[in-house]
Structure formats: C-alpha cells, structure tokens
C-alpha cells in the first residue's frame, strides 16, 4: 500500500506529535476526509475533537486513558479517541505511547452498533488504519522507518526506502 505520513501542524506540540496519512493519488489526509464527511451533521463534535487533539499535542500528551484501546489486532496500536459523552462520532487512530499518534478516519456510530464490525463505514475506516499500522510495523522492522530518540518523531531512512522502491 502506498501512502504518505504527514505531521499535522495544527495539532502537534511539545507533548505529542500528531500525524495523519495521505493515501496514494489523494491530496488530503484521512483525518481531513473524516472532517469533511461529518461537517454538516456533526460540526459541534468535530470542534470538540479538534480542541482535544490540540490539547493532546500541547498539554497532556496522548495518554492511554484518552483512547479506547485495542480496537484493532493485538499489538497494532489501533484505538479510537473517546467521544464526548453525548456524541457517537468515532475517530480511529494508531497510538505510539504518550508521544505520537497517527489519525485515521472514522464516522458516526449508529445506535445499537457495539463494534465497528457491525457497521460498513466503520469497518472500512478501522480496516484502513489497521492496514496502515501493519505496514508501518513492517517498515519499522526493516529499518526503513525509525523513531527519533525521544520517540516522538517518525524518521524515514532514505537509503533503505530507495532500495525497496
């Protein structure tokens, strides 16, 4: 799968780096798509999510308690940002400790749906970010990607990346 990992300037701060991904032949991030798709119906919830992501980047870091963990496969870091108590807008991401997250997409969680597998849109978004996580793990293992010493920045090793192309 081909995609670009980008750092979101509006959210990243000295407590956590916040990334999203741009899929091949696309121009905006998965998170941008999430916002665009839900703007008409869930603007208040989106503002809340944006405000919270800003605090995660600048004030608290990506504490485990802020996320519904283990939404993906064991060890892949896929989780969902907890929604506001009155909201059912689900955003999937990959959490790397308290210092970095990669935002994926998401969508509204319809009443009665308990798990993403029960909803077509949530399934698509959860499986997409799980694929991204799997590929990032592969690239970290091969040395193509690595974490900076403080663990907050994903670094690409161009030598290995070029070799694999």
């Amino acid at each position, binding site marked *: 799968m081909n995609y670009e990992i980008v750092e979101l300037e509006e959210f990243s701060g000295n407590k956590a780096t916040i990334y999203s991904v741009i899929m091949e032949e696309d121009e905006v991030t998965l998170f941008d798509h999430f916002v665009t798709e839900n703007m008409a119906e869930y603007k208040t919830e989106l503002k809340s999510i944006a405000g919270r992501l800003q605090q995660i980047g600048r004030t608290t870091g990506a504490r485990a308690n*802020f996320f519904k963990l283990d939404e993906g496969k064991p060890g892949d870091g896929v989780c969902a940002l*907890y929604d506001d108590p009155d909201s059912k807008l689900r955003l999937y991401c990959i959490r790397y400790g308290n210092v970095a997250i990669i935002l994926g997409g998401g969508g509204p969680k319809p009443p009665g749906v308990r798990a993403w597998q029960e909803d077509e849109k949530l399934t698509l978004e959860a499986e997409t970010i799980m694929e991204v996580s799997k590929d990032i793990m592969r690239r970290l293992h091969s040395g193509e990607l690595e974490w900076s010493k403080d663990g907050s920045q994903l*670094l690409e090793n161009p030598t290995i990346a070029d070799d694999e192309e």
Partner: protein
Amino acid sequence: MKNKKTARKYSSPIVAKLLSELTPAEELQHRTKATLAARLDDLINARGWGKSEFAERANKNPSEITKWLSGTHNFTVETLAEIALALDMPVAELFAPKQIQVVNKIKIVVTVKEVEPSIKYVTPMGHLVSGSPNYFSGEHHGVMFPLTTRMHQA
C-alpha cells in the same frame, strides 16, 4: 549516507477553520478537562492503585472512572468532592500543577560480581573498575547522575 527525513509538515485549511471557531472559553474547557483527567490519573498511579481499586475507594463503578479519565468528562463539584475524599486530599489540590520531585542527595551502590576480564567497566564518574568480584559506590549532591554504567569492550 543520506540524512534521515522527518515527515512533511501539513497544514489543513479545514482543521485550521475548525480550530479558529473554538472560543477561548471552549479552548479552556478542553484544556481543563484534559489536565484534570491527567492529574487524576497521576494521583491514582502515585498511590499505586489501579482503576478498580480507586473505583472501590470512591464507591463507583470502574466504567465511571474510565469516563473520568477520558479527558471528556464535565466534572461537577459533587464529583470533585467525592474524588478528593477518595484520594484524601483537598479539592483545590486536584487543580494544582504536577509537583516535580527534586532529588537533593542520592547514593548509589553497585556490586559487580564475576567481572568478565575482557570487559572494562567505567563508572559514571569515569573511574575504571577492574578485578573480580568488585565493588564501587558513588555519592553526589545536588543533581542525580545517570544510573547507567558505561561498558567498553577491551
């Protein structure tokens, strides 16, 4: 050898617009909810309790504690009072910034047994340690020195 590259910085107009619509009060509300949840998490951990133990002490269901720690909860004065009681501290301290623990004096004693002859051990102070078994200690005032012991292959 090429330098390692960080990810491209990306500015999103739609995200910037969303954030620009947050009022100062809304921004402060998000910050307060997040920092209060983080502070509560730290206080529970500092006591060596898990969520379940804290829930028991606060006479709450563990799922309620999960909500409190999620960074989204709108705490009432009633809830803050219950939390303060369970933690045995004044309510005002829930809003106090995290205290940084300053270590003024530390004594480290490291005992090394059966030193591999081909390895030279060097203390953080630069003292060479040799022989087997061996013993050295370090004492320092004011700041902590690292616990790591550098090892040099002979």
